[in-house]
């Protein structure tokens, strides 16, 4: 076919310009629709058509219109793209250019009611990626030169689709590679995080077991306390790993019940400030704010946010504000720490993600905020973060509300049925 074109098609200067513009449009855009728009724009005066439809294969079988433009006389039939389907499937099956003329019943002798269709397979090697259909209403039928020009456009469209598929494949591979890298880093981090407490337990236990030394009571107590605390740390770490795996697999089930969030927060604040002597928290919440939540899991979320504040914003005061509307309860956890650089914010809730600048000096697995987000999602709520360097970080949590009612028992007591 190519040789024939060389022999027979003589392009006019304006056609040449259009062909050049089409080639450029294909090369410069990854977006199929906008490139096809350009093709329509540059082709319409050379080819003369009323509609152009690109059909792509459906998941299982058959074809679906993926792009359709109607111009000129076709506008009266805008939105109706069915008239290309017969020739589309005919072309798709035959894998070659096909022509078809339809005559409107009762108007067989009036050329104005003839419809000429040109179907062109979109080929990538042996494979047919789809079909391009040109429809012309009211004749005259397509000439061989016009068919060849249409074939050129189809070849360009094939290139466009292939490029697009390539771009999609590359970004998919890149996403996979990113995930793999995160997983590798996670394995390095997690083995370090697991080994550190084990190293202390082993080291201090064997210290106490030395039979060539007698330790005084104070030292013995110090070493045993470290062993005890490190065993707890190991326990927490394993819990996080299991939670993250359950959340990922969708097998963590929430025991949702109406709970008094103000009361739960008060308990969390008392416990956290007892645990971390450097932590100061100011809680502003009106009494009796009730949300639908799993008390254990929601506690886990706030424990995590507060322990993050201790780790990454040491010494900075933390404010927790609870805002309540009839449907949504918003809880804002705000610190005045060093903040988080803007480029890390979009990744903060990703599984295994850790802010590189802080990950060497602080223990962590990159699971905490992922777990928080998943738990909040399981509650039908959402969590977001905003942060400004050297100003602080704000986490905002929205939870579905139950309205304010005095009948709800405090958390920890039997839920009402």
């Amino acid at each position, binding site marked *: 076919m190519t040789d024939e074109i060389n022999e027979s098609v003589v392009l006019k200067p304006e056609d040449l310009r259009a062909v050049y513009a089409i080639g450029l449009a294909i090369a410069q855009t990854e977006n199929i629709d906008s490139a096809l728009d350009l093709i329509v724009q540059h082709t319409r005066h050379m080819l003369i058509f009323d509609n152009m439809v690109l059909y792509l294969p459906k998941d299982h079988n058959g074809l679906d219109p993926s792009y359709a433009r109607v111009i000129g006389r076709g506008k009266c039939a805008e939105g109706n793209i069915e008239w290309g389907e017969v020739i589309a499937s005919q072309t798709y099956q035959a894998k070659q250019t096909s022509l078809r003329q339809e005559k409107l019943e009762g108007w067989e002798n009036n050329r104005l009611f003839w419809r000429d269709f040109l179907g062109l397979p979109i080929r990538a090697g042996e494979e047919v990626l789809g079909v391009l259909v040109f429809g012309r209403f009211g004749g005259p039928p397509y000439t061989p030169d016009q068919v060849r020009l249409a074939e050129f456009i189809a070849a360009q469209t094939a290139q466009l689709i292939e490029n697009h598929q390539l771009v999609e494949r590359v970004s998919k591979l890149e996403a996979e590679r990113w995930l793999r890298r995160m997983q590798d880093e996670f394995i390095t981090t997690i083995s370090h995080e697991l*080994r550190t407490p084990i*190293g*202390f337990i*082993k*080291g201090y236990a*064997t210290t106490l*077991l030395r039979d060539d030394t007698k330790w005084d009571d104070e030292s013995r107590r110090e070493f045993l306390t*470290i062993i005890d605390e490190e065993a707890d740390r190991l326990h927490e770490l394993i819990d996080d790993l299991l939670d993250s795996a359950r959340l990922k697999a969708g097998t963590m089930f929430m025991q949702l019940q109406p709970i008094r969030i103000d009361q739960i927060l008060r308990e969390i604040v008392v416990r956290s400030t007892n645990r971390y002597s450097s932590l100061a928290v100011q809680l502003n919440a009106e009494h009796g704010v009730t949300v639908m939540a799993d008390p254990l899991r929601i506690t886990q979320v706030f424990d995590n946010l507060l322990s993050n504040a201790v780790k990454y914003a040491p010494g900075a005061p933390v404010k927790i504000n609870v805002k309540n509307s009839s449907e949504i309860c918003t809880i804002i956890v705000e610190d005045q720490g060093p903040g988080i650089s803007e480029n890390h914010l979009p990744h903060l809730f990703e599984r295994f993600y850790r802010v590189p600048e802080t990950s060497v000096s602080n223990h962590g697995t990159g699971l905490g905020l992922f777990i928080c987000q998943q738990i909040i999602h399981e509650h039908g709520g959402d969590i977001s973060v905003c942060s400004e360097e050297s100003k602080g970080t704000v986490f905002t949590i929205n939870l579905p509300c139950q309205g304010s009612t005095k009948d709800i028992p405090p958390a920890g007591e039997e839920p009402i049925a």
Partner: protein
Amino acid sequence: MSKKILIVDDEPRYVRLMEANLISDNYQVLKAYNGEQALEIVSNENPDLVLLDIMMPILDGFIVCERIRKFSTVPIIMVTVKGEEQDRVRGLDMGADDYIVKPFSATELLARVRAVLRRAAKPTNIPAQSVFHHGTMDIDLAKAEVFLNGKMVYLSATEYRILLQLVQNVGSVIPSEQLLSDVWGEEYKKDKEILWVSISRLRQKLEKDQNNPQHIVTRSGVGYIMPEMREGQTN
């Protein structure tokens, strides 16, 4: 007088663990929680041994080791993490004398410390003032100092001991296993890797052409030899 040992680790609990055990064995302990502190203490306090953790923020153990070696021959034990075998070789390559793998037991730590200090101790059977010449290399055996073309070369304690073994057996091959057990101790007999790394490091410091060594020559499959050199011969 008790030996001074510098502990370098960013984990206070590891520092405390090593400190408690070393003090109970009558060592004097110096502590550093980062690389910069470590370098300062090594240059000011002249410790007898450094226990150096690898995973530290900013200046990691490798960099610290490399920098220490620019001005000091103090024996260094790298504290590595299990499973990171390449760390071990890299540490030795940077001039460390030995390594200990976390998690370790208290007795293991003390045994390593004793072994390295024993190796570092100057041999006593060397006649005072004696200087050994080998081509362009001179070794002041009394001061344990090595010179190339009259310029002093810094060797780690382990490197010096390897060299000394070769000097004491000049002209005859020392089997690798013997070199390992003489320099490192019986328990290192099979650890050929540690020997390769140290020999290659020694050659980097002493040989003009490492592909054609004059002082430390490999006898494939057997060991190493310092060939006898005729009076007046240079390399």
